[in-house]
């Protein structure tokens, strides 16, 4: 039905969507900027790779284990850094991604170091990736509309008011980070199965920046906006692969221009519901203009 190239892009898109949903929950819904989520992807990818290759585990439990490993790690990092109000997690996340990468590069006996980890079964076929994306996306939509989701948004909008209403805001921030780590871990595991080869360099700072740009572009606080943003940016970067040296420059400009011109991103806090689309057309077909796509 779909040939190899298009199928590959769809698979990659689904993987990016899973990772972007994780970052969107943390940055968009809980309001804390992160630059280290590629580190959680690396943990998920390596856990899954080692479990499947060395211990011969089936890929499905291995992917879940990869996600859980990233989740536990995120939880442990979150406890000291998210208790405080301020940019503490953001600063820690800068070092976090790099530290995880350094540990993987130097722990030769387990991770095979900087040369990468070859020989992973290519278990991430298109149906697997899209299936994971759909299951995790519906989970995420239920989560952000649940009590937990409302608590996250309350902590983002006014943590003083939220704590006066009896929410333990620090607890919710750590919880949000843990779930976000799980999503990124699963995305990393899927990426490993897709490439059948992983390398510490794949999970560097540029990857973290890419994730966060996608979320900002799609709209902070909108899950469907984040999926839309992922789709648009993945396709655009695929088209502009020949001029890939400008790739990072474009991501940087997206961050600045979106913040200056339209800080709420493509969709703002709106979700892409039938009512929202109808609302768009009743206002004279006014499209949500994205000032940053130029």
């Amino acid at each position: 039905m779909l040939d190899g190239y298009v199928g590959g892009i769809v698979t990659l898109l689904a993987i990016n969507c899973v990772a972007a949903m994780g970052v969107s929950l943390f940055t968009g819904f809980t309001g804390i900027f992160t630059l280290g989520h590629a580190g959680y992807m690396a943990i998920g990818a390596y856990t899954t790779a080692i479990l499947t290759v060395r211990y011969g585990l089936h890929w499905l439990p291995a992917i879940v284990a990869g996600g859980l490993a990233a989740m536990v790690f995120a939880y442990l990092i979150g406890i000291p850094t998210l208790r405080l109000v301020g940019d503490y997690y953001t600063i820690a996340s800068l070092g976090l991604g790099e530290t995880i990468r350094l540990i993987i590069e130097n722990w030769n006996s387990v991770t095979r170091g900087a040369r990468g980890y070859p020989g992973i079964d290519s278990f991430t076929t298109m149906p697997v990736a899209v299936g994971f994306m759909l299951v995790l996306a519906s989970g995420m939509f239920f989560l952000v509309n649940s009590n937990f989701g409302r608590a996250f948004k309350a902590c983002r909008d006014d943590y003083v008011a939220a704590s006066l209403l009896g929410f333990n805001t620090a607890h919710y921030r750590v919880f949000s980070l843990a779930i976000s780590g799980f999503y990124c871990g699963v995305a990393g595991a899927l990426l490993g199965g897709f490439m059948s080869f992983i390398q510490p360099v794949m999970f560097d700072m540029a990857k973290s920046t890419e994730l966060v740009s996608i979320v900002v572009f799609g709209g902070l606080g909108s899950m469907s906006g984040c999926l839309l943003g992922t789709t648009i940016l993945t396709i655009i970067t695929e088209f502009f692969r020949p001029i890939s040296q400008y790739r990072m420059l474009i991501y940087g400009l997206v961050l600045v221009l979106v913040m200056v011109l339209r800080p709420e991103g493509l969709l703002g806090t709106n979700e892409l519901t039938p009512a929202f689309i109808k609302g768009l057309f009743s206002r004279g077909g006014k499209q949500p203009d994205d000032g940053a796509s130029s």
Partner: protein
Amino acid sequence: MNTLIQQIVNGLSLGSVYALIAVGYSLVYSILLFSNFAHGGFLVVGGYICYFMLRSLEAGIWISSFAALIGAGVCAVIVERLAYKPIRERTSVTLYMLIASMGMSIVIENIFVVTIGGRFRALPPVVPMQPISLFAGATVSAFDLLSFVTSMIFLAALQLFLSRTKWGLAIRAASYNLRTAGLMGVNVNRLISIVFFVAGLLAAVGGIFLSVRYTLYPQLGSMITTKAFVAAVIGGLGSLPGAVAGSLILGLSEMLAAGFISSQFRDIIVFGLLIVTLIVRPTGLFGKSVGEKV
């Protein structure tokens, strides 16, 4: 014993350069309450201006450094006008400025990558590097002493500026409450421009020394900024004496780790110090209380 003294001198010299950057960052943080990630960009701008003045125009080191300081200061003011002013005039959400600053840092870095290339450049030999024997038979390089002394002179000058001048008083007032300072008749926009100019200028001093110590390349800024941010957190976010103390501690522990354990562990030590600080004393050495009041 000699190695120990040498590493301590190296550490103090590196730490004092970190201090120049951390102080500028803390100054901006104390006024606008966001982490200016583009701060590392100013450092790189200063380094490249100095490099091209020395190489292409064959100007002397004094003129080149002066041009670098002014250029980086002006660049910081321009970045503030273009990216942060529109945001801070419209909303009080500091997350937006944080994201925009991350974007600016990527933009500055990649403008250098696409225009003059990402290769490593060494400054011409304009700074004395010959070894100087100290007491007890230890030798240190003249460069280390020079960078330590120069950094201390600039930090003392900043202290004088903040404590003795009218604008210094305004800046100290604004660090308690920017709004109230504005109501008391301080021209807030000019104050913020001055703060950014000073921060850019100090970053350029650090940038020149760092491009002599390491070489000059576009990513130098983001590598150093991470460390300066960690130093600022160790000392207490937003506190200037804290930033200096944190930087010296960081420089010393980094150099001692490099000298006695392995230089591979430098960055892991930095991150470890950050986490330990956040667990043991979250406000840092000199920080105001930022813990959540529940």
